[in-house]
């Protein structure tokens, strides 16, 4: 009897956790070399090895699931728990930055002029590009839902179209934010206002880029027939992540852009 009699996935031994850990070590060492010794080589190496690790690790997961069939309903349940817990950890990560913002803005110190926004800071108009950005992300939430329903109904063409629209909207958001960053009259070093604004919106922007990348991978997998109408957890995970990114933006918009102006 050489086949498994349980529904779990006993993974082949894999080198990627090790290369991932080593790339993280190279990243921290690389940052030190950059900050203190003016050398970028270790940091560049760390980014390369980190990217290679992620590519090969996730490539292997696609092989194990789509090509080898290891993702039974039991395994999928575990993956669902995992993705939910990960998104929860990210929510807590952002809560820290919102805490910092509210701590500083609810009781502005005399050094800031006793006001929020601080004296001399000209915040961005929340009814201009930030409002457009809000509508862009909300629309992308609609389009990704359309993509999911099309996928569940077996409509290949609509799934691809809706996914593409979602990705385009994500990229549009990113471009708009980059232009806002360029045009803003304040920088990250303009006191606590600058710090809270750019760290919170900056990490959000990074998550938009990560989410867009995840969606692009899903698009390519849909092109190559990986998803079926009732088994497409990779897509669902990307959709959950995307909705999370949208919700964080709504909190950012209301707190920092609107109330904070």
């Amino acid at each position, binding site marked *: 009897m050489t086949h498994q009699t349980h529904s779990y996935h006993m993974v*082949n*031994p*894999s*080198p*990627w956790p*090790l*290369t991932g850990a*080593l*790339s993280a*070590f*190279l990243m921290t*060492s*690389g940052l030190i*070399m950059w900050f203190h*010794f003016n*050398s970028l*080589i*270790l940091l560049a*190496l*760390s980014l*390369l*090895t980190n990217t*290679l*690790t992620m590519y*090969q690790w996730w490539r*292997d997961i696609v*092989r*194990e699931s*789509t*090509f*080898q*069939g290891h993702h039974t309903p039991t395994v999928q349940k575990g993956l669902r728990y995992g993705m939910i817990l990960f998104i929860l950890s990210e929510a807590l990560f952002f809560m820290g930055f919102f805490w910092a913002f509210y701590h500083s803005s609810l009781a502005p110190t005399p050094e800031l002029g006793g006001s929020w926004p601080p004296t001399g800071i000209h915040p961005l108009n929340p009814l201009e590009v930030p409002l457009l950005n809000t509508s862009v992300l909300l629309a992308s939430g609609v389009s990704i839902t359309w993509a999911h329903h099309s996928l569940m109904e*077996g*409509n*290949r*063409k609509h799934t691809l179209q809706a996914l593409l629209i979602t990705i385009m909207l994500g990229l549009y958001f990113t471009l708009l934010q980059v232009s806002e960053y360029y045009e803003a009259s304040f920088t990250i070093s303009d006191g606590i206002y600058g710090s809270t604004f750019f760290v919170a919106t900056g990490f959000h922007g990074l998550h938009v880029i990560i989410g867009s990348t995840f969606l692009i991978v899903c698009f390519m997998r849909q*092109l*190559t*027939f*990986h*998803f*079926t*109408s*009732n*088994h497409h957890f990779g897509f669902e995970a990307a959709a959950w992540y995307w909705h999370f990114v949208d919700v964080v933006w709504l909190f950012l918009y209301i707190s920092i852009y609107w109330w904070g102006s």
Partner: protein
Amino acid sequence: LLWTAQRTISTASRRQFENKVPEKQKLFQKGNGIPVHLKCGIADTLLYRAIMILTFGGTAYSIYQLAVASFPKKLD
């Protein structure tokens, strides 16, 4: 045997993407004992070797830099 659920409702499209999943399923389900991260042949092996050299080489280099940084040159 692996069940392959219906993956597409075929409609006429400009780009003819063929469904190559069944071929891949056959390739990756070969009972040859090769682990999944090397199962696609030479490309996998090259990529694996590249990342191993980069990570271990990089680690050695960073420990070397640590040693250099631990003994700063005295300024006269």
